[in-house]
C-alpha cells in the first residue's frame, strides 16, 4: 500500500495498531497503567468502561494525538518512535477520527470541512476535491444541499455524519469513533451504528469504537476491551477488566462486568433492556 511515496507494510497478519505497556497521567491523576491493546486488520474493537477510565485517552494515544509517558505504539507493525517525520505523517493519514462532538470547524462550511484533509494533504484538482466531497457526503446519507451550510445549522446527528464524511475523505485504513452515539436519539444512533458497520465493509477499514452504549457494542464490534479507572485499582491490578469477543462479554457473570453491561442498557432511551444474556438483532 503506497501513500504519498511512503510504503506502508502490506503483511495482513501484522496488526493495524498495537500499543504496549502504555502509561499516561494527567497531572497527578493516573489515566492509563501498563495498557496493551491490539487492533487487527479489518476488525472492529469496542473499548468500554466507566467514565474517566481512559477510553478516549487510549484512542488518542493510538493515533498519537496524545503522547504517552511510557510504552510503545506500533502502526502497521512499526514503532512510531522509530519512524521518520515524513513516514509518521504519511502513515497517520491512514487513520480517520470521529470526535465525540464531531469537532467541525465553525469558520468553514460543510463542503470546506469535508474538503479540509484533501486540500491540506492531497495534491488534487478542485474538481476532484469536489467530486470526493460529494461522494463522501452521499455515503453518509447527506444531500448536496448541506454543502453550503455552516455546522451550527445542522442537527447533532448530521454533524456526526459530516464528521464521518470528513474522516473518510482521505480513505483511512483505520477509523476511530469517540462515543459516536452519545447525545443522539435511538433512531439516529441506529443510523450511525449502521453507517459504522457499512463503512467497515465497504471501505474494509479496521474500527475502534469508544462507547457507553451496549447496543452500539453489539451492533458494530467484533471484540471488546473493558477498562477500569486507575483510581479504583490496587497497585498490582491490571487496568483491563475484559478482552475478548462480544458474545463472551455478554455471557460473563463477573458482577463488575455484568453490572456495567446491564447498566449500559439503562442508557438506551427506547426503554429496552439488554442484560448479559440478551442480544440485539
Amino acid at each position, binding site marked *: 500500500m503506497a501513500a504519498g511515496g511512503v510504503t506502508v507494510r502490506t503483511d495482513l497478519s501484522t496488526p493495524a495498531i498495537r500499543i504496549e505497556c502504555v502509561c499516561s497521567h494527567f497531572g497527578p491523576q493516573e489515566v492509563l497503567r501498563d495498557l496493551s491493546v491490539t487492533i487487527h486488520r479489518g476488525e472492529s474493537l469496542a473499548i468500554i468502561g466507566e467514565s474517566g477510565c481512559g477510553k478516549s485517552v487510549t484512542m488518542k494515544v493510538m493515533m498519537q*494525538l496524545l503522547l504517552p509517558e511510557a510504552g510503545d505504539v506500533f502502526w502497521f507493525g512499526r514503532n512510531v518512535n522509530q519512524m521518520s517525520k515524513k513516514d509518521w505523517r504519511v502513515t497517520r493519514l491512514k487513520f480517520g477520527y470521529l*470526535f465525540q462532538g464531531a469537532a467541525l470547524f465553525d469558520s468553514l462550511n460543510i463542503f470546506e470541512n469535508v474538503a479540509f484533509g484533501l486540500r491540506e494533504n492531497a495534491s488534487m484538482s478542485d474538481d476532484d476535491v469536489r467530486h470526493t466531497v460529494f461522494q463522501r457526503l452521499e455515503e453518509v446519507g447527506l444531500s448536496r444541499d448541506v454543502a453550503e451550510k455552516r455546522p451550527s445549522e445542522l442537527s447533532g446527528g448530521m454533524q456526526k455524519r459530516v464528521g464521518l464524511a470528513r474522516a473518510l475523505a482521505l480513505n483511512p485504513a483505520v477509523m476511530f469513533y469517540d462515543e459516536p452515539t452519545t447525545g443522539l436519539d435511538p433512531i439516529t444512533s441506529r443510523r450511525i451504528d449502521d453507517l459504522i458497520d457499512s463503512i467497515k465493509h465497504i471501505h474494509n477499514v479496521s474500527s475502534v469504537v469508544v462507547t457507553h452504549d451496549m447496543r452500539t457494542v453489539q451492533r458494530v464490534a467484533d471484540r471488546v476491551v473493558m477498562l477500569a479507572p486507575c483510581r479504583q485499582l490496587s497497585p498490582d491490578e491490571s487496568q483491563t477488566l475484559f478482552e475478548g469477543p462480544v458474545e463472551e462479554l455478554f455471557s460473563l457473570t463477573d458482577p463488575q462486568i455484568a453490572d456495567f453491561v446491564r447498566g449500559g442498557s439503562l442508557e438506551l432511551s427506547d426503554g429496552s433492556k439488554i442484560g448479559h444474556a440478551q442480544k440485539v438483532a
Partner: protein
Amino acid sequence: MQAAAVQFTTSVGRAVNGLIVEVGALALFFVCILTRLFSGIPRRRVLVPILHEIGVRSVPVVLITGSFIGMVLAVQTFTQFKMMHMESRLGAIITMTLVSELGPVLAATMLAGRVGSAMAAELGTMRVTEQISAVSALGSDPVRYLVVPRFIACVLLVPLLAAFGDAIGMFSGWAFSTRVLGINSYQYWSYAIDFVTAWDIMAGLVKSILFGCSIAIIACHRGFHCGAGAQGVGRAATESFVLSFIAILGLDFLLTVLLNTSYYLIWPQAVSL
C-alpha cells in the same frame, strides 16, 4: 515573624518562578511559530480572511481612537503652548507624540482588546471543542494552520493600522486646531514636517511591528493552552488582553530607551538625556 518572612520569600519565589515559566513558554511558542513560518507561507484562502478580520474590521476602531486622540492632544497642549506664545507649533507636538509614541501604543492596545482577545477566545473554543485536535487528526499542523496566519496578519497590519491612526490623529488635530483654536493651517503642517524626522517614523514602525508580534504570540499561546469549558475560554481571552497590554507598555519603555540610546550613539552631537 520568621514564619511570615518564610511565607513572603516563598510567595515571591513562586511568583518569580511562575514569571520565568511563563516567559519561557512564550519564547518556546515563538520559536515554534518561527520554524513553521520559515518552512512555508500559509495558503491564500487561509490568510486572506484573517487579514480581513484583523485589518479591515479594525479600521473603524482605529479611526475613532485616532480622531479623538488628535483632538485631545490639541486641546491639552494648546493652553500650555499659548502661555509660552508657541501655540503655532501645535502641529509639531501633536505629530511627534502620535508618530513616535501614542499612535503605536494606542493602536496596539485597541488591537490587543479587539483582535487579541478574539483570537484567544476563538482558538480557546477550538481547543475546548477538539477542533485543534481535528486539525492535527486531518494531517495538518495546528500551529502552521492556525497560528502562523494570525502572526503574519498581526505583524503586517498593526504597523499599518498604527500609521492609519497617526494620519487620522494628525488630521483631526489639524481640523480642531485650525477650525476651533484658530491656528494657522500652514504653520501647523510646516512645524509638523520640520520636527518629525525619519528616525521618529522608523521608531514608531519598529514599535508597532514588535507590538504586533507580542499580541499574536500572547493571544495564540493563551488560546492554544486554554483551560476546559467556557470559564477556560473566558480566562484565556482576559489573560490575553492583560498580558498583551503589559507587554506593550513594557516593550514601549524598553524600545524607547533603546532607540534613544541608539540615536545618540549615531548622532552624538544631538542633545542627550
